């Protein structure tokens, strides 16, 4: 390597380093892209875009008890129990939010939009059992689909349910309500 080459190498290195430094320095004068979370933002939800696939919630008043979501879920997150008899009752609708991978296949399978994603994304709790969300407190009659229903019918009561909000409260042992039906029908639980 000749002496001129040697000097040219040094010059190139110094020039390219200062060129990079100039780019870095120019960013000190521009607006930052980061947000001081959570200090400068009231709620993380403001940053979340519409259609984000967060924690799952169920509007049980819209559920038809068709079990389509349970069958679609690839990892068995959803557990629905429907009592058999002359009158059907939904006696259990559990979602294991700790196991869920937020793929959204269940929300597409649901005919009435009863199961859907919220924009909730921060769901750390001190007891993993709290993340099993039980949506049925009292037995619920399945929803009868309306003829010529529009998506508005199903989106009317868009809410973040109390069960999703209350997940950080104290852990309570849960037992699915059982239904006694006068004409001798029995719940699926009793059969097993």
């Amino acid at each position, binding site marked *: 390597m000749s002496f001129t080459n040697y000097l040219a190498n040094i010059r190139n290195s110094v020039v*390219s380093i200062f060129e990079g430094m100039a780019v870095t320095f120019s960013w000190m004068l521009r607006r930052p892209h980061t947000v001081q979370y959570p200090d400068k933002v009231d709620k993380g939800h403001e940053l979340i875009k519409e259609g984000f696939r967060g924690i799952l919630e169920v509007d049980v008043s819209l559920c038809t008890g068709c079990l389509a979501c349970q069958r679609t879920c690839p990892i068995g997150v959803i557990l629905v129990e429907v009592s058999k008899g002359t009158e059907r009752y939904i006696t259990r609708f559990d979602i294991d939010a700790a196991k869920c991978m937020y793929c959204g296949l269940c929300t597409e399978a649901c005919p009435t939009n009863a199961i859907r994603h919220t924009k909730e994304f921060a769901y750390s709790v001190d007891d993993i059992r709290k993340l099993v969300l039980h949506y049925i407190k009292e037995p619920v009659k399945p929803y009868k689909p309306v003829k010529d229903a529009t998506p508005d019918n199903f989106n009317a009561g868009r809410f973040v349910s109390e069960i999703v909000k209350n997940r950080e409260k104290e852990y309570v042992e849960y037992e699915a309500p059982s239904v006694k039906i006068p004409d001798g029908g029995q719940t699926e639980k009793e059969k097993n």
Partner: protein
Amino acid sequence: MTLEERLNLVKRENEILLNMGPQHPSTHGVIRFIVRADGEIMVEALPVVGYLHRGIEKLAEQTPYTGFIPYTDRVDYLAAMFANHAYVMGVEKLLGIEVPKRAEYLRVIACELNRIASHLIALGSMAMDIGAFTPFLHGIRERELINDITEMLCGARLTYNYMRVGGVSKDIDDRIIKKINDFLDRFLPGFIDEFNRLITNNEILVKRCVNIATVSADEAINFGLVGPNLRASGVKWDLRKNMPYSVYPELKFEVPVGEGFRGEVGDSYDRFVVRVKEMEESARILKQAVSQLPEGEILAKVPKRIKPPKGEVYSAVESARGELGYYIISDGTENPYRVKIRTGSFSAMKAIHIKSQGCFIADLVVLIASMDIVAPEIDR
């Protein structure tokens, strides 16, 4: 011969055994290399794979065809869209479904966005492994904008699960198109120029990468290298051009190949520059795809329970890490009989083993980073 036997056999005097990984910041995930070194020079770096094996191929046999799409996201977490695309294309071939034109365009848009995001990480982490931390943050910043777009497009930032058999899950709207256009305006040429000034033309990076682990064209083909690694060696092979799928024949773009930008053809620096140029081409494809987006359906008529007829099919896409192929065998039931996944990172591991012989230990990091290895893609 087991690993231990092999190592005992070849361990000679004056050689040291050095364990790199599985938890090493420069191995891009849980990959382990057993380095046999004579002083600073490596005799070989033996890759040990299997630390991230999750049995995804076996899981496919117990999952319905639609239910397996979320699993394909986990094959390559940096470029999940391509895994989605290759798999649903295979199932569509089995079923004989024609995908609507709009859905095909949306797939191309999603995939090219994902390719830019993946290359940004690859380039940034390669610079970081060499010692330059700033380019990584610049790459992450741009990738964040892409993540915002995909969040609006499909609801997730990393494991998209966007494609369905017969189309895509959600339609695009004007807000998202505007966001994509805004991103492209700042990306080409603004960001690329700035990135080149910042790192690509940086003399320290050039000196670290030039003539390191040169893979010639013949060797690259024999190793089974695919994607940017193969093209950096001067082989013009791109599935988007050579085995056209989706709507790529309708879009105009160049295939960048390695030309020996500073040193020999096929060295680590060529692999770096080819990725930068590929990002530019992806941005050009995006511009065309967004402006040509046709109206129409986004999901073809697909039966609710997908039960393809007996048969087998191979479908491959040009992923950010090269040819990503799914070989699907159907036995006429609701679950696939067998799914085999062919990925680019696995064949790159063999190239690393051969090319590490005679390199400095410090250059192994450059070699691994320039091959753009992603650990879950090696093991599945």
